[in-house]
């Protein structure tokens, strides 16, 4: 029983770690630009596919499997260029429009990226499953935990801390917080919103792709990844509160662990329970756990 609980918690936290990254990307974009980026799931998928590619290439070039984390992280960073392409190429034209149109534009990106992935990698899943075992496992109170999962959890935590530091200490972080709090005042202070938007969206993109890349050894990159993940990511940010980083963290934990419990007990209720909670949150506390502003 005890080992079961540890296993459930552990896999829940592992899933939460990757969810957190994507959700963090969603939150920072929503907080600053007030755009709910449906394509974050697609970035996740892209990160996964490119991650597989980088790892396979690195192995072929002789990289020892134990260092596979490096090409994965590289994949996440490598895809940063998608951010400016989408932001400058598409999103900026609708900044002055109604929120619903902005949402629809991100939906258009979802459609396009789905086929971009299909074009480059086809429809069969891509994986690096052997990789998983390379890192081995450890035993803890009788539960068998893959080391790789620990690495991902650690990486996510590090990234979370880095984000927190960035928001609190760096100039960029201060600009982000100022804009989230009061957009007009920030503009009046002479902050170049164009540049900020581009940077923020790119940050959001990389967080998404990183999440996708890091999850690779434990699952395969599949066509439905993006569209399915947005459903979870969306639950995370609603529960945590739209626009809040802390919300992304705790929301991810809630969703990750709930999902893990559901899978271990009654798999069919996984989505059901999560969505009942989402609706409950939206009805009784629309700001979520940590959100601020309006309903």
């Amino acid at each position, binding site marked *: 029983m005890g080992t079961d609980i540890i296993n459930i918690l552990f896999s829940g936290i592992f899933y939460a770690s990757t969810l957190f990254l994507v959700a963090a990307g969603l939150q920072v974009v929503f907080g600053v630009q007030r755009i709910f980026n449906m394509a974050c799931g697609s970035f996740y998928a892209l990160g996964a596919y490119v991650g597989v590619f980088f790892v396979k290439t690195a192995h072929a070039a002789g990289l020892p499997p134990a260092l596979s984390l490096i090409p994965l992280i590289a994949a996440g960073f490598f895809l940063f260029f998608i951010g400016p392409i989408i932001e400058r190429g598409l999103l900026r034209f609708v900044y002055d*429009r109604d929120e619903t149109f902005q949402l629809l534009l991100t939906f*258009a990106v979802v459609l396009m990226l*789905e086929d971009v992935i299909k074009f480059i990698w086809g429809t069969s899943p891509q994986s690096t499953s052997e990789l998983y075992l390379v890192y081995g496992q450890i035993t803890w109170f009788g539960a068998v935990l893959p080391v790789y999962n620990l690495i991902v959890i650690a990486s996510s935590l590090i990234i979370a801390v880095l984000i927190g530091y960035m928001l609190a200490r760096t100039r960029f972080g201060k600009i982000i917080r100022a804009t989230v709090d009061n957009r007009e005042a920030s503009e009046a202070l002479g902050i170049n919103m164009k540049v900020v938007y581009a940077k923020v969206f790119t940050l959001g993109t990389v967080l998404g792709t990183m999440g996708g890349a890091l999850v690779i050894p434990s699952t395969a990159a599949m066509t439905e990844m993006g569209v399915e993940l947005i459903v979870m990511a*969306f639950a995370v940010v609603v529960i945590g509160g739209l626009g809040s980083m802390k919300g992304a963290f705790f929301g991810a934990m809630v969703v990750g662990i709930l999902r893990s419990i559901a899978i271990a007990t009654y798999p069919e*209720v996984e989505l*059901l329970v999560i969505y009942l909670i989402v609706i409950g949150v*939206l009805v009784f506390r629309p700001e979520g756990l940590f959100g601020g502003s309006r309903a």
Partner: protein
Amino acid sequence: MAYVHMKNPKLWVFLAVTLFLLIMPRLGSQYLSYLLLTFLGYAVALLGVNLLFGIAGLLSFGHALFFALGAYTVAFLTTKFGVLHMEAILLIAIVAGVLLGAAIGAVCVRYIKIYFGLLTLAFGMLFYSFLLKFYYFTGGDEGMRVLRPYLLGMDLSAVPKMQFLLGKYYYYALAALAVASFAMWRIVSSPFGLCLMAIRDNPEKANYLGIDVRRYRWYAFIISGGYTAAGGVLLAPVLGQVDPTLTYWTHSGTLVFMILLGGFNTFFGPMLGAFLYIFLQDTVMSLIPYWRFVFGAMLAFIVIVAPGGVAGVIGSLWKKEAARDSARNNADPGSERSA
């Protein structure tokens, strides 16, 4: 004008289109007529979705829920309860759509814009998980079969499938679309419709004019639930099979895409959008497998460049012509147009 009214030249277009719809199954290819048949179901559904989006200004990312509700109603009633009369099925599905719309709408209309969209998306996915979970009743991800219903009391199960679908069923669905359109036209041209448009344009001002914004949005949600369910009913026999993907959030996105493509700002825009979407998808799919990319690009283009959709573009071209004409004829600026 807050809403485009029909004038004489447009009447000709309307008649031409009606003629086309009437004779297509007789003259056109079977395959294209089959596509046209799917269009009919979506057209009815979109009338409902656009009442909410184009008229009342609320974007729902979960309306595929009602569509699936209608479709599953047909499957349930025909396979599990032996109810085969199409009229009864339609009635039950519409009532179900109305009731569910009332329940879900009561929750959702307290919120606007993004939150409304997210909440409806959540409900749509909740229904999806319902359909998957209760697989004993719903067939899970394999879905359910749909048996052939009786049309106007006629048992047509002996008729070969295509002959049935492209024959009596087609005209039945077309008649249903005509009735549904007429009813929606009345709704949109009513004082209630004007109030909804006021709510869309400026909810605060509408409040100040004594319009109970939340309640009216609720009414619109309820009506749209019934309509979208009816659309699902009409589509189900055509598909022959229903499955949970009908309520997946991307299908809701498709419904909105259709509306945007045709134009949310005119009465027939959404229908035009359904027509264009279905036929374009078929054309593009036969050329390249990456139709989603093309459609995504199309949606992006529409949102950025022509948010009024195809109907919007046609409308503005029309207006330019009319302006040029009136400048030429020096029309009396004080004359009032007959509405």
